[in-house]
C-alpha cells in the first residue's frame, strides 16, 4: 500500500505561522510589561516593538509566499 502525502498551502501557512505567532505575542507581552513598569518610556518602546514584530512577522511571510506558490 502506497500513499503520497501532498503538503498544501494551508498546512505550510499553518505550521509556518505557529512560531511567528508565538513570537509576536511574546514581543507584545514584554513590551506591555515594559510600558507598565515605566509608562513614560512608551514612546521609545513602541517603535522598537513594531520593528521587532516586523522581524517576527517576516518569517510567517516566508511560509505564506511558499503557501501561495505550493
Amino acid at each position, binding site marked *: 500500500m502506497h500513499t503520497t502525502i501532498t503538503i498544501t498551502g494551508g498546512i505550510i501557512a499553518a505550521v509556518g505561522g505557529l512560531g511567528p505567532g508565538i513570537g509576536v505575542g511574546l514581543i507584545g507581552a514584554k513590551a506591555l510589561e515594559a510600558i507598565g513598569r515605566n509608562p513614560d518610556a512608551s514612546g521609545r518602546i513602541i517603535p522598537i516593538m*513594531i*520593528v521587532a*514584530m*516586523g*522581524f517576527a*512577522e*517576516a518569517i510567517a*511571510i*516566508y511560509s*505564506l*509566499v511558499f503557501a*501561495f*506558490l505550493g
Partner: protein
Amino acid sequence: MISLAAEPIAHIGNIPITNTLTDTLLVDVLLIASAWYVSKKIAVIPSFFQASMEIVIEEFYKLTESVSEKKAMLIFPFMMTFFLFIIVSNFSGLFPIVTAIGFFHGKDFTPLFRSASTDLNTTLALALVSLVATHTMSIYTLGLKQYIRRFISYKPLELYTGLLEAVSEVTKIISFSFRLFGNIFVGEVILGLLSAISAFLLPIPLIFYEMFVGTVQAVIFSLLTMAFMALFTSPHGMEE
C-alpha cells in the same frame, strides 16, 4: 491573480521591460522631482511640503547620529535613500489608479505599473547595494587590514567566529531581499484575492494594513542597513 515574476510589457532587443521596472522609474522620477521641487525654493519660513520633508529627514538624521556618532554623514545618505525609495515603491502599488492602467492581451490583463518591491530582482538589487556599500565603507574607514581581521584570524576561536560572520553576510542578502519581497508580494496577493471576492469596501482595511506593513518594512530595511554600516565602520574586537 498576480504572477510571481514581473510581467514584461515590452522588449528592447532581448531585454524585457517589465512592469516593475517602469514602476522603479516612476518612483525615481517622483523622488527626483520632489527633491528638485523642495530644493528649488528653500525658504526660512518653510512651506508645508518643505516642512514635512524636513521633519522626516531630521528625525532620521537624529536617529543615525544616536547610533553612529561620527559616521552619520557617511551612513545617512544611504539609509535615507533606501527608506524613501522603498516606502514610495511600496505605496505605489496601493494607489488605485497606478495598478489599473494597463492593457489586455487575450484574456490576461497586464498592468503598466506594479509595485517595485514585488519583484525579487529589485529587492535583491537593493540588498546587494546595501551589502556592497557596507563593505566598501568598512574598507574605506577602517583600512583593508582591519577589515580582513573581522573575518580571518590565526586564533582558532576568532577564526571560527570570523567564519560565522562571513556566512552571515551571505544569509544577510537572502533575509534582506526575501523579507521585503515577501511582505509586499503577499500583501498584493491578498489584496487581489479580496478584490476578487468583493472589490467594494472589503479591501479598504487591508489597504491601510498594507500601508502600515510597507512603512514598517521600509523602516526595517533602512534601520538594518544603518545598523550594519555602524557596526562595520567601528573597529572590530577587543584587542586593546
